């Protein structure tokens, strides 16, 4: 009796292990923070790229939605996604875009904006990259969309594509 129980236990144990391994084969083991939504962003104070002014989280509370976009002139995918930001800014009144220029030189960044358009209501600078950590950023480009209460409602890791763009439009209705 006890023996049968032992056998049953061992068999189910082995089947459990093997099933987990089988399921694990289908999973993607690359980590992404794109599901880390719902929290509020921390309070911050970032210097402007162009002049000596600052922007803080309080000012963002005035916007219905804000898209915080981390970009750099040396980043090729940033150039590709930029047109979506320009379009977003032109066609939507309820979302404002805060740009954060990441580990870049002022002149290069300004040239970038001159070439491709400036969709940003404010361009902040993050020359040593430390501010990006405050926002949970780990790659460039990366964008965070927050609501009036400064809660993160979407994260886009990597360049914004057509699918992301349509998703954003849905969210800000």
């Amino acid at each position, binding site marked *: 009796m006890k023996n049968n129980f032992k056998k049953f236990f061992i068999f189910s144990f082995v089947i459990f292990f093997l099933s987990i391994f089988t399921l694990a084969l289908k999973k993607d083991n690359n980590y992404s923070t794109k599901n880390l939504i719902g929290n509020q962003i921390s309070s911050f104070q970032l210097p402007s790229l162009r002049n000596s002014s600052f922007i803080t989280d309080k000012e963002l509370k005035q916007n219905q939605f804000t898209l915080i976009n981390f970009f750099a002139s040396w980043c090729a995918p940033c150039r590709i996604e930029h047109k979506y930001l320009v379009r977003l800014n032109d066609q939507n009144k309820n979302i404002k875009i805060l740009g954060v220029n990441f580990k870049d030189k002022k002149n290069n960044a300004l040239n970038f904006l001159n070439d491709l358009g400036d969709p940003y209501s404010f361009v902040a600078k993050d020359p040593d*990259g430390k501010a990006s*950590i405050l926002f949970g950023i780990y790659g460039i480009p990366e964008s965070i969309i927050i609501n009036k209460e400064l809660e993160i409602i979407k994260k886009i890791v990597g360049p914004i594509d057509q699918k992301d763009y349509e998703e954003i439009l849905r969210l800000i209705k």
Partner: protein
Amino acid sequence: MMLKKIIFFIFLSSSIHASEVNLELIEIYKNIRCLICQGQSIADSNSDFASTVKLVVQDQLKDGKTKKEIYDFLISKYGEWIVYQPTLNKNNFLLWFLPYLILVFGALIIFFILKKTKDSKDN
């Protein structure tokens, strides 16, 4: 003689302190995962992300934050994946608990084997 010993130990402990701060920094680096690398800590990685996080950790240590506060900060931004030492919560409870359970289980098996031998010898 006693005074000399006390001075000696104070001197010893103060000279340790200078290198201790540095040691703590490296220890923290070794516990933080580089998110864009394949299985490396920020101590071992040369990536952009690693160097940025190192700066942030240095700043926070200078501000007087404790190790746990720094880890909690990073976890709140990046998830539990970023720290190599799993925290003790309901998800990871089994992880920390199972090895010791097996240790105790093994001890019990050995105890019963020895007991059976002793009993059969006494009979």
